[in-house]
C-alpha cells in the first residue's frame, strides 16, 4: 500500500501549519495571509485523509496504516497509531469540518486572528491524533490536550458569559478525564500493556472491570454528554463562536461515543453487560427530557445544543445494544450528527453574523428575503429530524431496529424522542423562516454569499449522500464493529 507514514503526516500537518503561522507577522494586512495559510493546511489535511479512505482495505477488520515507535524506555508505551473502520470516519469528520470552520470564521473573527488559527490547527492535530491512537497513553494525552485549544476558543472569542462557560467546560471535562487516567494506570499495572488492540482481549477480573468501567464512564459520559452530566454543553455551545460550536458538536462529542465503543465495549465487556440498564435509563431520560427542554428554548443555539444531547442519547442506546444494527446505527448517527449539527450551527452563524442576535423571537419570515438560506437550512433541519433520504434517518432507523431485539421500552423511549425532535425542529423552523417579516431590522437582510455557499453546500451534499448511500460508510466499519461484538459475546458467554 503506502510506504510513507501517511497517518503521521495527517496528524502533524496541521501542527506544522501552526508553526508556520506562528512566524507570520500579524497586522491589518497580513491577517489574510494567516487565514489562507490555515485554510490551505487544513484543506491539504483533508485531501490526505481522503487517501486514507480510498486506500482503505474493507476486508481487513484490524488496524491499517499502522506506525509504531518505542516512546518511553521504561514502560511499554509506544507512539502507535493506526486506523480501523471505527476511527476512519471520525478522522474524516475532523478533517472535513476544520477547513469549513476556518472558512466560517473568515470575516467574523477580527481580533487575534493568529491565535485563533493556531488554536484551530492545534485542535485538529489533537483530534485526529486521538482517533488514530492505538496506545492508551497516547490517546489520553490527545484526549486531554483537546481542552487547551477549546478553552481558549470559547474564552477568547466567545460571547458575554464566555469566561463562565470556558471554565465550566474545562473543569467539568478535566474532572472526568483524570479519573480515566487512574483507570489507564490500573489497566497498565494489571497487563503491562497500553495497546488498545491487546487490551481488547478481556484481561480483567469482574470487580476490577466494574471500577474501570465507572472511571471510563465518568470521562466519556461527560464528553458525549449524557444526562445528567450534560450541563456544561449548553453553556459552552451558546458562548462559543460559531466555529467553536461546530467543532464541539461535530467532533468533540463523538470522542465520548468513540471511547465507549473502544474502551467500555472493547475492553470491559462483562462490566458493560452489568451497566447496560443504567445506560439505557440515562439515555432515555436524556432523549425525552432534553427534547422537552429544547422545545422551551428561546435561543437558537441553545435549542440545537439540547437537541445534540438528545441525539447523543440515541447514540448511547445504539452503542450499548451491542448488536450489529445498534452499533452501526450509533456510528451512522454520530457521523450524521457531526455533519448536521455542525451545519445547523453554521446556519445559526450565518444569521448571527448579520443580526448579532440568536433570539428566536427576533427572527421570522426569513424565507422572504433569504430563499437559498431557507432551502439549505431545511435540508439540515430535516436531517436532524431524521427524514428518510437524509443521514439522520439511517442512524435512528438502525438503532430502533437494534433496540427491538433488546427491549420494546427502549424502542418506545427512543421513538418518542424522535417524534419530539421533529416537534422542536419544525417549530423552530416555522418560527424563524416562515411567515411574513415582522421585524423591520430584517427588511434588508441578505441571502447567503459565495463563501457561505462554499461552506454549506458540501455539507448539504454529504447529508443527502449519507442518507442515500449509507453503505458507502457502513461497509468499511462493518468488520471492525463485528469483531467488537464477537469479543463481547464471547466474554459474556463464559
Amino acid at each position, binding site marked *: 500500500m503506502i510506504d510513507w507514514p501517511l497517518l503521521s503526516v495527517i496528524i502533524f500537518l496541521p501542527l506544522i501549519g501552526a508553526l508556520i503561522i506562528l512566524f507570520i507577522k500579524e497586522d491589518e494586512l497580513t491577517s489574510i495571509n494567516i487565514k489562507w495559510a490555515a485554510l490551505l493546511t487544513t484543506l491539504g489535511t483533508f485531501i490526505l485523509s481522503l487517501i486514507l479512505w480510498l486506500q482503505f482495505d474493507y476486508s481487513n477488520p484490524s488496524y491499517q496504516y499502522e506506525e509504531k515507535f518505542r*516512546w*518511553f*524506555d521504561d514502560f511499554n508505551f509506544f507512539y502507535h497509531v493506526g486506523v480501523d473502520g471505527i476511527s476512519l470516519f471520525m478522522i474524516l469528520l475532523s478533517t472535513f469540518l476544520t477547513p469549513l470552520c476556518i472558512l466560517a470564521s473568515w470575516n467574523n473573527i477580527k481580533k487575534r486572528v493568529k491565535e485563533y488559527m493556531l488554536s484551530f490547527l492545534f485542535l485538529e492535530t489533537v483530534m485526529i491524533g486521538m482517533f488514530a491512537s492505538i496506545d492508551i497513553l497516547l490517546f489520553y494525552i490527545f484526549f486531554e490536550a483537546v481542552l487547551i485549544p477549546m478553552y481558549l476558543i470559547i474564552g477568547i472569542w466567545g460571547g458575554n458569559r464566555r469566561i463562565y462557560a470556558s471554565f465550566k467546560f474545562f*473543569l467539568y471535562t478535566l474532572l472526568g478525564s*483524570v479519573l480515566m487516567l487512574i483507570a489507564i*494506570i490500573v489497566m497498565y499495572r494489571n497487563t503491562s500493556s497500553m495497546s488498545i488492540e491487546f487490551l481488547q482481549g478481556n484481561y480483567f477480573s469482574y470487580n476490577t472491570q466494574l471500577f474501570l468501567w465507572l472511571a471510563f464512564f465518568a470521562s466519556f459520559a461527560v464528553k458525549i454528554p449524557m444526562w445528567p452530566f450534560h450541563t456544561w454543553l449548553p453553556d459552552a455551545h451558546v458562548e462559543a463562536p460559531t466555529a467553536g460550536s461546530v467543532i464541539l458538536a461535530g467532533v468533540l462529542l463523538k470522542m465520548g461515543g468513540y471511547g465507549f465503543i473502544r474502551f467500555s465495549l472493547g475492553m470491559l465487556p462483562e462490566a458493560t453487560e452489568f451497566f447496560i440498564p443504567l445506560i439505557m435509563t440515562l439515555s432515555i431520560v436524556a432523549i425525552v427530557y432534553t427534547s422537552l427542554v429544547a422545545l422551551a428554548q428561546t435561543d437558537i443555539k441553545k435549542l440545537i445544543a439540547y437537541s445534540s444531547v438528545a441525539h447523543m442519547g440515541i447514540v448511547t442506546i445504539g452503542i450499548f445494544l451491542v448488536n450489529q444494527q445498534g452499533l452501526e446505527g450509533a456510528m451512522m448517527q454520530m457521523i450524521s450528527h457531526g455533519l448536521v449539527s455542525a451545519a445547523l450551527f453554521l446556519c445559526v452563524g450565518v444569521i448571527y453574523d448579520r443580526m448579532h442576535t440568536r433570539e428566536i423571537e427576533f427572527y421570522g419570515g426569513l424565507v422572504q428575503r433569504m430563499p437559498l438560506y431557507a432551502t439549505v437550512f431545511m435540508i439540515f433541519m430535516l436531517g436532524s429530524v431524521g427524514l428518510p433520504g437524509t443521514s439522520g434517518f439511517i442512524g435512528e432507523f438502525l438503532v430502533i431496529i437494534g433496540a427491538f431485539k433488546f427491549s420494546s421500552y427502549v424502542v418506545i423511549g427512543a421513538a418518542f424522542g424522535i417524534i419530539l425532535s421533529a416537534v422542536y425542529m419544525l417549530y423552530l423552523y416555522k418560527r424563524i423562516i416562515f411567515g411574513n417579516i415582522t421585524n423591520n431590522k430584517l427588511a434588508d437582510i441578505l441571502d447567503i454569499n459565495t463563501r457561505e455557499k462554499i461552506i454549506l453546500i458540501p455539507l448539504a451534499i454529504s447529508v443527502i449522500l449519507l442518507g442515500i448511500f449509507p453503505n458507502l460508510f457502513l461497509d468499511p466499519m462493518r468488520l471492525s464493529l463485528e469483531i467488537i461484538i464477537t469479543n463481547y459475546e464471547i466474554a459474556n458467554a463464559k
Partner: protein
Amino acid sequence: MKSPMLNNIYNIFFIPEIFLACSSFVCLLFGLFLKKNAFRQTSNLAVFVLLLTILLVYYDSESNFANYKSLFSHSSFINFFKILVLLGSIASIIISKDYFLGIKLKNFEIPILFLFSTLGMMLMIASNNLMSMYLAIELQSLSLYVAAAIKRDSISSAESGVKYFILGALSSGILLYGFSLIYGFTGSMNFDDISFYLSKYDNLNLGLIFGLVFVMVGLAFKVSAVPFHMWTPDVYEGAPNSITGFFAIVPKIAAVALIYRFCLVPFENFYLEWSQIILFLSIASMFLGAIAAIAQSNIKRLLAYSSIGHIGYILIALVAANDYGIKAASIYMFSYMIMNVAIFGILLSLKVNNEYLINISDFKGLSKSNPIVSLSISIIMLSMAGIPPFIGFFGKFYVFIAAIEQELYVLSVLGVLASVISAFYYLRIIKIMYFDESISEGTINFKISFQSKIILSLSLFLIICFIFYPSILINISASLTI
C-alpha cells in the same frame, strides 16, 4: 577515559563539596576586593563555580566517600538531586541578576549566600548521619534567613526574614529534639547503624515513635507541607522576587531528597509508622495548596500555594515507597524545577509602570502587548496544572503510576481531584491574560538579559519538547538507587 592527573583530582575525598566550600570563600574575597561591579562579577564567578561543581559531582566516584561513610553517603539518587540543586542555583542566580541590579540591591554577598546555601543543600542531600544532617540543614537555612532579609530598608523583606528565622529556628529545635530521642533509643547517629539496630525489632517503641514524629515535623516544615506551611506564603511574599525565586526553586529540591532519604534509609522497615504521617501531609498539602491558591491576588503567594500543592504530589510518591516512587520523585522534581525557573525567569523581567509585576490583575492585557511572553506563561501554567502534552503531566503521571503500583487507589483519586481544583487557579491566570478586556492603565515592559533568555528558552523547550523524547530523563531516573 580519564587522564591520570584528572583521576588524582577526582580521587580526593569529597571533592565537589570541598571545592564548592573553598571557592565560595574565594568568591567572598573576590567580591570584597572588587571596587566596581562587584555584584555582577561575583555572580558570574558564582555561576562558573557552580558549573565546575556540577562537573565534579558528575565524575566523582563512590570510593571517595568510603572514609566519610559515617557522615555522608553516596548514591546515584544523591548525585541526581545534587545536580538538580546545582542547576537550580545556577538558573536562579542568572535570572535574578538583572532584577537585583534593577532594584539597586547590589550587595555582592547575595551570590555568596546562594553558594553557601547550595553547599548546605548538597551536604543535606548526602548526609548519612543525624549530626551532619542537622549541621547541613542549619548551613542552608542560615544563608536563606539572611537572604530573605537582604533588602534591609524594606519592612516586608525584614519581616519575612525574621518570620522565616523564628519559625525555622523553632522547627530546627523540634528536629534536634527528635534526633536526640532517636539517638537516645538507638545509640547511634549513623543512618546505617540505626537501620541495622531497628532491623532487630518488629515495632518501634514509644520513644522512637516520638523521635520519628518530631523529625517528621521538622522536615515537613522544611518542605513546607501542610500543616507546617504557614511561613511559606508570607516569606515568599515579603522577600525580594529573586530571592523568592531561589526559595521556590532550590531548597525544596534538597528538602524533598532529604525527606526521602530519611524515610527510606534508617526507617526503611517501619513503613507503616512514617507512611501514615506522610499520607496525611500529602493529602492536606494537595488540597490546601489547591484551595487556598484560588483566592490569592498576589502572584508570589499564588506560587507559594502552588508549590505546597506540588509537595503534596511528591509525597504521594514517597508514600508509595517503591522504585517507581523514587523515579517519580526525580522526574517530578525535575519538572518542578524547570517550571519554576521558567515562571520566575519571566516574573523577574516583567515590569508594569517600572514596578516589578506582583499582582495577578497586572497580567491584564499582557497577551496584547507581549504575545510570546503570555503564550509562555500559559504553557507554564498548563504544565503546572498537569495538562498534557507538557512536562508537568508526566511528573504527575509517574507519581500516580507509583501510587497505583502500591495499590493506593484512594490516595490517587484524591490526588487527581486536587489537580482538577488546582487547574482552576492556573487557568485563571490564562483567563486574566487572554479573556479579560485590557484596561490600559499601565504599560508592561519585558526586558531580559541574554543569559536569562537562554535559561528561559531552554526551560520552555524542555517543558514543551519533553514529550517527544522522554527517554533521557526516564532512563536516568530509572537507574537511581537511594
